[in-house]
């Protein structure tokens, strides 16, 4: 059994929390005491049924305001798969939260209100899903019960969305008509929507294929920690510990250590008491090299036949996440894999209006702004373009005055 992480994009008005509540409720992922609290709550739907949205509300402040502010993680499983939902808020002032939730998702559910169709926030959510390169997209047309389960309404929304999808560069899209409130096509196929022959949302989530690139050409191992017991019997032991971020390594592979550029061969792969022949993307391992070369935390081991770009000036997409605006005169820190280096944002190329997708010239970057910049780094960074290899193309910016994470970087190309 594997794990599927997905994000739901939509606002409270689209019934997002109700959708998640319904998924949990109908798949029996709610335990008795949680259910008891749910029934005991004063919040009810207009028809007196329990408000499933309560299940995903976490913090007091949020309950008071009746909106989802932060990202909440929910867990459920079926016989086929385990699921982790990142429940992120949909309003524009919480764009950074959605970017955060989207960064780890393998699938995005974009909610559209059947009565409203493709609206401004649909554009925004779709743009973010594309920016963060979420490989699979479900467009869930919700509140079908409010439009009498009319196929024409659904078909029109699908047609409208296809135009938007090509504009933002999304593919692998599945369209499902649902009613989260009534439970149509969430877990069970709907008896009200007979014209729809596809899977229910849960059936789709259970069966959608998520591929992992395990090619050796894409092999990346950022080093976190050097294991050196320094005991008498393990005097010469030097193991390089880390998690393979993409691709795969095998014993005897020719590898290069970056940024130094030294080469060697993998002599041994360890995982505690096991010695596997290969290390695949996602595995935490300790590797040993034939030659004694100087490697420390922050270095990355890659396959010599497929090397990333190494550069001190990189063009990147940036999402600004702090209430203090970007200051181009300031030195920030960039954290990429296990490496943290000083940097500056050298140039703002443009800013995107994420509601209309128009690109504007800009000299300032404020909370939730997204656009393209050039970052200048004190030491060379070994990266892949985010579009090509997410695992080695994402980085964060840290404000060294506050230590806060202030930006998300999707690296694009060297401009040295």
């Amino acid at each position, binding site marked *: 059994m594997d794990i599927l992480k997905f994000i739901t994009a939509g606002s409270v008005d689209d019934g997002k929390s109700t959708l998640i509540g319904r998924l949990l409720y109908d798949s029996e992922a709610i*335990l008795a005491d949680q259910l008891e609290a749910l029934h005991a709550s004063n919040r009810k739907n207009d028809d007196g049924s329990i408000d499933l949205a309560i299940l995903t509300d976490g913090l007091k402040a949020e309950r008071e305001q009746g909106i989802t502010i932060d990202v909440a993680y929910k867990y459920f499983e079926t016989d086929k798969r385990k699921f982790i939902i990142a429940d992120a808020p949909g309003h524009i002032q919480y764009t950074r939260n959605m970017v*955060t939730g989207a960064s780890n998702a393998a699938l995005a559910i974009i909610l559209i209100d059947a009565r409203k169709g493709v609206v401004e926030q649909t554009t925004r959510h779709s743009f973010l899903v594309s920016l963060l390169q979420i490989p699979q997209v479900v467009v869930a047309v919700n509140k079908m019960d409010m439009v009498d389960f009319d196929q024409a309404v659904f078909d029109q929304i699908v047609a409208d969305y296809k135009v938007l999808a090509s504009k933002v560069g999304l593919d692998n899209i599945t369209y499902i008509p649902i009613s989260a409130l009534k439970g149509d096509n969430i877990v069970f196929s709907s008896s009200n929507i007979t014209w729809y022959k596809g899977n229910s949302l849960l059936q789709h989530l259970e069966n959608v294929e998520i591929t992992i690139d395990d090619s050796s050409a894409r092999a990346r191992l950022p080093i976190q920690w050097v294991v050196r017991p320094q005991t008498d019997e393990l005097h010469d032991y030097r193991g390089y510990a880390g*998690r393979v971020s993409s691709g795969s390594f095998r014993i005897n592979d020719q590898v290069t250590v970056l940024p130094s550029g030294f080469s060697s061969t993998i002599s041994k792969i360890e995982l505690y008491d096991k010695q596997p022949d290969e290390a695949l993307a996602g595995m*935490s391992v300790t590797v040993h090299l034939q030659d004694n070369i100087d490697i420390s935390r922050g270095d990355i081991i890659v396959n010599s036949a497929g090397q990333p770009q190494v550069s001190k000036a990189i063009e990147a997409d940036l999402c600004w996440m702090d209430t203090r605006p970007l200051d181009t005169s300031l030195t920030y820190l960039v954290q990429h*894999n296990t490496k943290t280096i000083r940097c500056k944002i050298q140039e703002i190329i443009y800013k995107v209006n994420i509601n209309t997708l128009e690109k504007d010239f800009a000299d300032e970057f404020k909370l939730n702004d997204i656009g393209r910049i050039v970052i200048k780094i004190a030491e060379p960074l070994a990266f892949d373009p985010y579009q090509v290899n997410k695992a080695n193309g994402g980085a964060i910016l840290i404000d060294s005055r506050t230590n*806060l994470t202030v930006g998300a970087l999707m690296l694009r190309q060297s401009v040295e």
Partner: protein
Amino acid sequence: MSKYRLDYLDELEAEAIYILREVAGQFEKPALLFSGGKDSITLVHLALKAFRPGKFPFPLVHIDTGHNFEETITYRDEMVARIGEKLIIGHVQDSINEGKVIEQKGKNASRNALQTVTLLDTIAQHQFDACIGGARRDEEKARAKERIFSVRDEFGQWDPKRQRPELWDIYNGKIHKGENVRVFPISNWTELDVWNYIRRENIPLPTIYFAHQRDCITRNGQLMAASPFLNMDADDRIENKNVRFRTVGDMTCTAAVESYAFEIDDIINEIASSKISERGARMDDKVSEAAMEDRKKGGYF
């Protein structure tokens, strides 16, 4: 591109090991908070996988309320001897003796709330900059929103409104002097995941997790172990029952469930079909709907 996928336990394990190694790489003086419960026992096992054949780059820290199940302490001492790592104990009794906290009175008196002070003092005394804990996001809805690296101010407080965005698997452990970070490597595990992992890895557990006979009383609808630490009065009736514990905490606030699960397979079956979530058996969360959030803000684990 192939279609291979890691099995979910392998994926969760790899993620937890990755997080533990990030702690080692990013902090000067980390510590692993060890309660004797199954979650922190799992953390120790994961740390073995992350750092052996080297030593742990952190000590284990146990905050001892003095009201422990004896079985937990026996387990703790045997485990520490077996793995040969350092253990630091912070005693709630010391905090009481120093007048920093006052023992609660009355029928529901518990040292559970007092241990926050002892924990913060222990952190300050040893200048720990990161404390690894076994909390999971599925336990409780305030925890569902907590980061894997969760920054605490110098008063140990968690500010849910000022959490740092946590993107991809890049964890920002930068802090100011006096602050520290709570790190939760098994955030994404569920209770059942932990049990399935313990079974797969053959990890030994304290005996109170398994069904046994014990004198209990019923308090607020929950079964509590009769002990000298529990303030009892004439109304309390002691009954001998077949019970086990789903969490291991202070004896005064950890409720038992009636059970005939003698083996780990029985427990997994019991949980898989169970209708009470784990923290439902902890009286300390019952106080109010926002109980956990309030205690986290105050520096609780």
